[in-house]
């Protein structure tokens, strides 16, 4: 008897299940209205009706479109929140496909919803999270200011910032998620070149415009993609400032210890080539893991035949470690050997970590020294410091200006349509905290054959300077601008 009951129960359960399976409609030919019931969520519905869990933005979009004409439809402001009893519109497969094919061309019509833009950068190890954090803070500040002033196209802007951890594969995943799941209409940020090179491929695939704030690899804009713009200098331009400076001072024997990453290698190779062209051939490049704690053995080796200039090109904590160890060893900065540090020397923690060893160190600075500030720079520096309790560096300036450039282009385009934003970016002229930003070479004015490919969609006059701390404890604002000569505030080089 028990067996019979078991069989009966199984049969009853199967019968109950069959109508459900049969009722689950195949991908629709025409859209349909649907009333939300308990335990529904959008990705579940998109899987059920459209056969794809990731197709839910299409439901959100079409429901909001219907809502604009007929308020019996719900308005979905957050795709993660739907309520029981809401009437929503499930598009047909064709409608969903049409939405995704032209997602960005129609997104501009989504009245009322916030405009989502994506940010990316390293917020945790092994990425350079100091730079990433500063980048995110500056971008958030820019978005908040723009929202307080009325937003863009009459709508508020939401910045969704993804942590790329300094890893190219994370960059790809974050960009994919921002575009396909968060539905961002444009992207900005990034610190690491290797990660940017992965991200730009994803952005290109979906046709989403990107204004890169800090990656320097020539290949970023050298990709020649319509979607890619850059406010940061290219590595060739950046390295050339130090090379020209070294030639100007007249040092002959140079040793660089650079981090073994794309950032370090691109610079190392660039310097060897550029310095050779300037007649300086005694240049040695030593590669190091950026997490190296103790540089002493290699510094002892270098000290066997001290160079005129020692460069420690290690981002993050390695910058101060190497400088301090070279100083403790009595190798540099000394009257015989000058010391070239990384751009991270601009942060206030530099002095806490190197002590008096930082005096006479010089470094390349991407940003605007105080002597060249405009009123936007002054306002930005004051607001940032007040909000975050930290003096912002060049990375923050670039990230802040990148957001403004991007959103100003969107406003000028009159739409969030990707192509319209790209066209507007090609025509943009924006005076930001870094000065006037524009992109010289674009689809109407292609890069001349005799110029390098990275000039495409590139701001050609980023602010790159050589600064030197002539006194211990100086802030970056007080450091002497030593090069280029026409904008210098101090002597070319002050020797210990």
């Amino acid at each position, binding site marked *: 008897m028990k067996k019979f009951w078991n069989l009966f129960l199984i049969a009853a359960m199967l019968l109950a299940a069959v109508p459900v399976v049969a009722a689950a409609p195949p991908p629709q030919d025409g859209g349909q209205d649907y009333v939300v019931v308990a335990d529904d969520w959008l990705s579940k519905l998109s899987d059920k009706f459209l056969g794809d869990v990731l197709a839910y933005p299409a439901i959100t979009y079409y429901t909001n479109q219907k809502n604009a004409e007929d308020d019996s439809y719900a308005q979905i402001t957050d795709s993660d929140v739907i309520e029981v009893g809401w009437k929503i519109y499930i598009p047909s497969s064709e409608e969903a496909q049409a939405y995704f094919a032209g997602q960005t061309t129609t997104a501009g019509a989504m009245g009322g919803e916030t405009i989502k833009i994506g940010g990316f950068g390293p917020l945790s190890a092994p990425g350079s999270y100091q730079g990433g954090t500063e980048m995110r803070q500056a971008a958030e500040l820019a978005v908040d200011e723009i929202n307080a002033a009325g937003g863009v196209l009459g709508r508020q802007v939401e910045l969704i910032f993804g942590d790329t951890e300094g890893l190219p594969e994370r960059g790809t995943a974050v960009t994919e998620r921002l575009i396909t799941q968060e539905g961002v209409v444009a992207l900005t940020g990034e610190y690491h070149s290797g990660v940017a090179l992965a991200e730009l491929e994803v952005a290109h695939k979906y046709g989403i415009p990107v204004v890169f704030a800090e990656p320097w690899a020539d290949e970023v804009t050298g990709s020649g993609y319509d979607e890619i713009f850059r406010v940061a200098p290219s590595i060739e331009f950046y390295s050339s400032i130090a090379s020209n400076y070294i030639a100007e001072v007249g040092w002959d024997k140079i040793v660089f210890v650079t981090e*073994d990453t794309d950032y370090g290698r691109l610079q190392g190779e660039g310097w060897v080539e550029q310095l050779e062209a300037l007649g300086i051939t005694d240049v040695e*490049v030593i590669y190091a893991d950026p997490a190296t704690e103790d540089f002493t*053995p290699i510094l002892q080796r270098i000290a066997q035949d001290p160079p005129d200039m020692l460069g420690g090109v290690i981002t993050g904590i390695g910058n101060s470690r190497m400088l301090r*160890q070279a100083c403790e*060893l009595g190798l540099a900065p000394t009257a015989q050997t000058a010391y070239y540090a990384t751009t991270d020397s601009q942060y206030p923690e530099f002095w806490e970590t190197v002590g008096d060893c930082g005096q006479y160190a010089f470094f390349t600075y991407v940003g605007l020294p105080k002597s060249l500030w405009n009123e936007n720079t002054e306002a930005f520096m004051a607001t940032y410091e007040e909000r975050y309790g930290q003096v912002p560096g060049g990375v923050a300036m670039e990230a802040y200006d990148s957001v403004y450039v991007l959103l100003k282009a969107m406003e000028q385009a009159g739409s969030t349509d990707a192509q319209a934003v790209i066209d507007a970016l090609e025509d943009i002229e924006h005076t930001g905290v870094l000065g006037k930003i524009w992109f010289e070479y674009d689809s109407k004015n292609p890069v001349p054959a005799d110029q390098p490919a990275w000039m495409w969609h590139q701001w050609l006059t980023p602010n790159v300077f050589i600064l030197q701390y002539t006194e211990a404890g100086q802030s970056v604002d007080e450091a002497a601008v030593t090069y280029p000569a026409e904008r210098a505030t101090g002597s070319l080089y002050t020797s210990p």
Partner: protein
Amino acid sequence: MEYFLSLTITGLVMGIIYALMALGLTLIFSILGVINFAHGEFYMLGGYMSYFILAVVAGLNPFVAVAVGGLIIALIGLIFELGFLRPMHLGHIERPAEYAILITFGLSFFLQNLALATFGPYPHRPPSFFEGSVDLGIIRIGADRLTASLLALALLAVLLLIINRTWIGKALQAVSQNKDATAIVGINPLRMNTLAFGMGVGLAALSGALLAPSFSITPDVGAVPSIRSYIIIVLGGMGSIPGSILGGLLIGLVESFGAGYFPDPSRALNYKMVFGLVIFALILLFRPRGLFGRREA
């Protein structure tokens, strides 16, 4: 010759500190039978602790801050052992070996991200023990680093005395050899577990605090030292105290000579850790249980 001697000094100075940190890991392994994957994070916390103690109590002697920091982290270690590792030894956990790996790995991620959220991403450095460098004739060496090394040497000596001459030390050794037998003679192995974990992470914290003025601290600063410690304890023989000390010194010297003599200078620094790994592989090849490893019973 001077160059050789200067590299030897650099290697020994670092090797002593490596040994101190590895000793903590070995103590935990030999008593609890657990590899502490969060060892590097306790190293990091030791550095932050001494930094913040000195920032809050102005004018405090940096040595006091190091000691207090080490003690606080040791206490945190005791609490962690009582809460998360003791259930394993009481038989409350179904698969203790996997549990120990997961719980210490989890702790490692937790502490690193907690530090990032609490202390921020920027590097910090506590004030120096002594400013400037000491000229030893053949080499100038940072006063902070030399101080850290001498203190580490003193700590190693004290620890060896405790382990070999005191009742607690002998009890710890007994537990590492046979838990059941020690329980029969009246030593509580559970208490020894807690004590060993506290001492182990306290040693990691002391290493971190001693090196913080030389190397500065960020939330991920423990990653390299912890990997190096795993190498050292396997090299020295899992659970062997003299093995850890010798292993630490050996790795310190090999790293120093490797960076100093490798024919291609552009690779010399990059391969620093690799030189240690080569020695590690060679020793394991000819002596699979490490320098001082016990033969499996």
